[in-house]
């Protein structure tokens, strides 16, 4: 059974304080985005550990991974994880910086099964590899596509989709 929505009765500031106390060392730059979201940055190497602890947080467990987005910032990539906690009815948005030279980050699909396809999409579109993902194949584009179209330096060419 999931906890009833909002049953913890925590305000967003309470949640931010609680997160700061429990994971303060790992969540940098944490701030509240009105009305119900805590935004924070996480070190790439700490992501999986943080995910496991957030999923198991007593009374404030983040049961759902809403989506994973990948953003190309030209000098680096960023993955964004949007999490939802039923008990507190609040969201947590984690930003992880991924180096462009070696775009690899640990998967969280073992913690939140819902992240599975979002990570496949990020691989397909942005070329970010998720270490430990069980089935990292292309998802929206065809198997033989060349390149990752949502990268800012992607140049489209007929050679990239030979089946057309």
């Amino acid at each position, binding site marked *: 059974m999931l906890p009833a929505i909002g049953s913890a009765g925590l305000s967003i500031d309470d949640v931010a304080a609680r997160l700061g106390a429990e994971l303060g060392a790992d969540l940098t730059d944490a701030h509240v985005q009105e009305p119900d979201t805590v935004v924070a940055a996480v070190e790439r190497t700490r992501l999986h550990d943080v995910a496991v602890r957030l999923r198991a947080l007593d009374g404030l467990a983040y*049961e759902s991974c809403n989506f994973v987005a990948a953003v190309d910032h030209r000098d680096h990539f960023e993955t964004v994880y949007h999490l939802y906690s039923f008990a507190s009815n609040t969201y947590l948005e984690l930003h992880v910086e991924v180096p462009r030279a070696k775009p690899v980050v640990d998967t969280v699909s073992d913690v939140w099964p819902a992240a599975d396809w979002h990570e496949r999409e990020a691989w397909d579109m942005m070329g970010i590899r998720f270490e430990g993902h069980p089935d990292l194949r292309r998802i929206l584009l065809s198997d033989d596509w060349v390149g990752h179209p949502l990268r800012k330096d992607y140049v489209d060419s007929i050679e990239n989709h030979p089946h057309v």
Partner: protein
Amino acid sequence: MSDAFPTTAPDEAMALALRRIAESEAAGRGSEMAGLGFNQVVVNMGPQHPSTHGVLRLVVTLDGELVRDVIPVIGYLHRGKEKLAEKRTYFQYIPIPDRTEYVAGMNCEWGYVRTVEKLAGIQPTRRSEFIRVVMAELNRIASHQVGVGTFVADLAPLGTALVFYAFRHREKILDLFESASGARMMFNYFRFGGVRYDLPDGWVEQCRELMTQVPAWCDEYESLVNDNAVFLQRCIGKGVMTQEDVGDYAITGPNARASGVAHDLRRTRPYSVYPELDFKVCLGEHGDVYDRYQVRVDEIRESARIVLQCLDMLPSGPVQLGTLRAPYVITPPPGACYTAQENPRGEYGTYIESDGSRYPYRLKYRDPCFVNLQIFPKLLRGNKIADAVAISGSMDLVLGGIDR
């Protein structure tokens, strides 16, 4: 014949299915029918298959009639909408979200426009807020009519009548859309700070008259199937989704509420004028196929109530912001923003990152069907293939949203 249709190597999904069969047989978990001389077979269902309601392809591993494994393959309708956003101004992009979850275009457009409004700090006019809610709820009714109608039609010949009734009623709602926005399905109706046109003369009365008929429509749908023994046998206890599944797979919308999770963004993350309206969050109990069907029918009734309230409360005033130029050229300050709202199929979110220019730097959809589809392998495994059709119909997928 063989020259005209050369056989090609199996694609990755097919190869994966075959590999998994080989693994299961190597581990001694071969076909239960092996004694009868059968093996597990891979059946390619779709992308052109009447019961997948679009170009969904399921690579199904069957053991006799039993589904052993399912690999969904998507992307056949991919049109690169996230990439398109980076090449269009915020204003030019408004018609495009219509084409994601295309049976609920109003809701999708609203989702995009709301995110940009939040980024740019635009407050829509009060009259337009009510018009938006009316349109969104009308579209929820129309969308659930498609969902329920096609789902019942999948089950057995008994449902054919329902799908025709539902579609006939839906057409009346689409007529309302057409007279307000000019289009049946691809509206281009929302604007930053308001909506494109005010309601035409007589529209409110017409809409009110139609909405008073909605409870009778629902009674009609229910009377067609709810007492039917064959329908009940094919629905009750099939494809049960537990509350843990809802959390793990981030299931939202009627599919989550059918499992008793009271997650409805209109209530849990209120937006627009929903806090002022009186409506019930419709819940199921068991999370099976039947509850998912019943929740949708109940929501049609609730949406009609919401529309009627909005029409009674509809204030006068402008439907767009006074400054004519403002809605057309938008340059939100740098930053990122995610807003979500309750679409007929669940949480439809848009994540937009702005770099301060006239073009979105990055736009990402969180489409409810894309997320809901992930649970298919878990839900279908162990069922008969005919039940798999019922279960996938009850999830009410729209491929335009999944593939984007």
